[in-house]
């Protein structure tokens, strides 16, 4: 039915998003980073860990696009492979959050007897500063890629759960939920068909901000030396290593820093656009 495609909510939302200028800017920035991450083996064929001691501290030039670091490693390769890692971590944390945050939030919001217990544990986790909690978790699990993802998942899932719970509590009282119960629908069907689809808008907005926060926190962790272990290139540890040469070779810090900033900016613009279009009344503090 062609008519349906023209009027379906998904399609109108996409059209409105594409008319939102800042959303398109954010999407473009994010797409550049995401593409660089996906295409890393082709656009940065040089091994990011290949040493070239004669080419140490080369400034950006035609030969070395982003210059080289103190070991003569290509920053172009290192930043792009770093993007791959950041994107992977960001995406994994978002997926973990979407699954567990929705599950916990929906159950706590829908079944009132669960609410108090679950949300107090949630609040306890939220009371810790994010980076501190993440460092504590990686200290227990050990600093590897998978453990960073798990740590960030544990740190940020409570926030997502809280947002989902808030939506579910409102939606649970909607008349169409009452009407569904009145026509004999069970809990599972009501949650899946009537509550969760309507709770998606704030969740999607939250997840786009969360992507940015996860990328930023991962960079912080690896800057502090508790993220992925060197020589694996991450934006955080490239900056950490380049820090001591900042006056002689500022590009070592500046380029991954700019990449991080543009990624976070892009994701925030994306999230703002989604928020404006999906729910103008919603205001989330990322």
């Amino acid at each position, binding site marked *: 039915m062609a008519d349906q495609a023209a009027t379906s909510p998904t399609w109108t939302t996409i059209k409105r998003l594409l008319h939102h200028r800042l959303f398109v800017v954010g999407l473009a920035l994010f797409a550049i980073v995401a593409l660089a991450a996906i295409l890393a083996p082709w656009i940065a064929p040089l091994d990011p860990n290949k040493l070239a001691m004669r080419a140490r501290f080369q400034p950006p030039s035609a030969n070395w696009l982003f210059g080289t670091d103190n070991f003569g490693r290509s920053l172009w390769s290192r930043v792009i492979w770093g993007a791959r890692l950041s994107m992977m971590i960001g995406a994994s944390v978002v997926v973990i959050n979407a699954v567990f945050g929705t599950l916990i939030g929906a159950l706590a919001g829908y079944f009132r007897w669960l609410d108090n217990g679950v949300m107090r544990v949630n609040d306890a986790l939220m009371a810790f500063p994010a980076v501190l909690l993440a460092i504590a978790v990686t200290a227990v699990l050990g600093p590897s890629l998978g453990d960073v993802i798990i740590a960030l998942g544990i740190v940020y899932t409570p926030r997502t759960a809280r947002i989902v719970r808030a939506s579910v509590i409102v939606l649970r009282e909607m008349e169409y939920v009452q009407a569904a119960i*009145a026509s004999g629908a069970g809990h599972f069907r009501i949650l899946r068909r009537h509550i969760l689809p309507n709770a998606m808008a704030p969740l999607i907005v939250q997840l786009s901000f969360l992507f940015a926060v996860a990328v930023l926190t991962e960079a912080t962790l690896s800057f502090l030396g508790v993220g992925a272990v060197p020589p694996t290139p991450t934006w955080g540890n490239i900056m950490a290593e380049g820090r001591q040469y900042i006056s002689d070779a500022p590009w070592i810090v500046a380029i991954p820093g700019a990449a991080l900033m543009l990624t976070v900016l892009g994701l925030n613009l994306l999230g703002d656009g989604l928020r404006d279009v999906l729910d103008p009344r919603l205001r989330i503090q990322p």
Partner: protein
Amino acid sequence: MTLLSVANLTTTFRTGSGEAAAIENVSFDLNEGEILGIVGESGSGKSVTALTIMGLLPMPPARVVSGTIMFDGRDLTRLSDSAMRRIRGPGIAMVFQEPMTSLNPVFTIGEQIMETIAAHERLPRAAQFAHAVELLDKVGIASAAARMSDYPHQLSGGQRQRVMLAIALSCRPKLLIADEPTTALDVTIQAQILDLIMDLRDETGMAILIITHNMGVIAETADRVLVMYAGRVVEQAPVAALFDQPLHPYTRGLLSCVPTLEQSMPRLRAIPGTLPEPGRRPPGCRFAPRCPLAIPACAAALPPFETHAPGHAAACIRIGA
């Protein structure tokens, strides 16, 4: 034959200041194919009665303290959650007051009707679709097949209430509870929906419990009427008897609030005062503080619910005074 028999039903709510009874000792019977109207002001307990029958009240804070709800040979107050869920839909269906919010905004109306069909009957998708179109047709939606892919926001209030009726009818219920089904609609649409409800009764033979504060709706649709005040049934009568010879002073007050064309009066006679809150109800007749005929004895004890004519009963000691 009696389909629904409610006896001595009392539902309370836990409040900050103890248990408050929303309805007390409500009793009535509903026969197959009959339309029973429950009328009363906001807070009189008519919606709580309906929600108690459907088992839709949140418990706690609500609690059924006493009474039985016999439906089709089973006491609904004793059923488990899952048994109650199987009654909702094929046994008792319900339409709500607010058609604007009674449909899920993210699915088409076709999907929503087919979902209810699928929940109670195993049918191939094509048969579900055909059944849904047939239902939309039955409730008077023009070019039903084309409207199946419409979203709720594309429909008017009257159309949405028709869709709600189609969903309620999809499981062929034996009893339909309509809680203020026309309150949120334009007057012209109200009449259409009421006509539709009566047509559907004639066609399907289902019993209907219609809840309203509008005497006009009662006059137009109901066979029998229950008048509720402050959580109690104060009068029960066949519809003609109620309008010709209202017994309870409250019923008379309600009827004199309705403007008529036959006699001109300078102002409508409103009932003075307001409905007492559940916790602050007077010990005797609940209506006594507002009643023009009240005597000291009224406030002393609850008046008995007595039959004064065949099928016509009222709870008042001043009848005939």
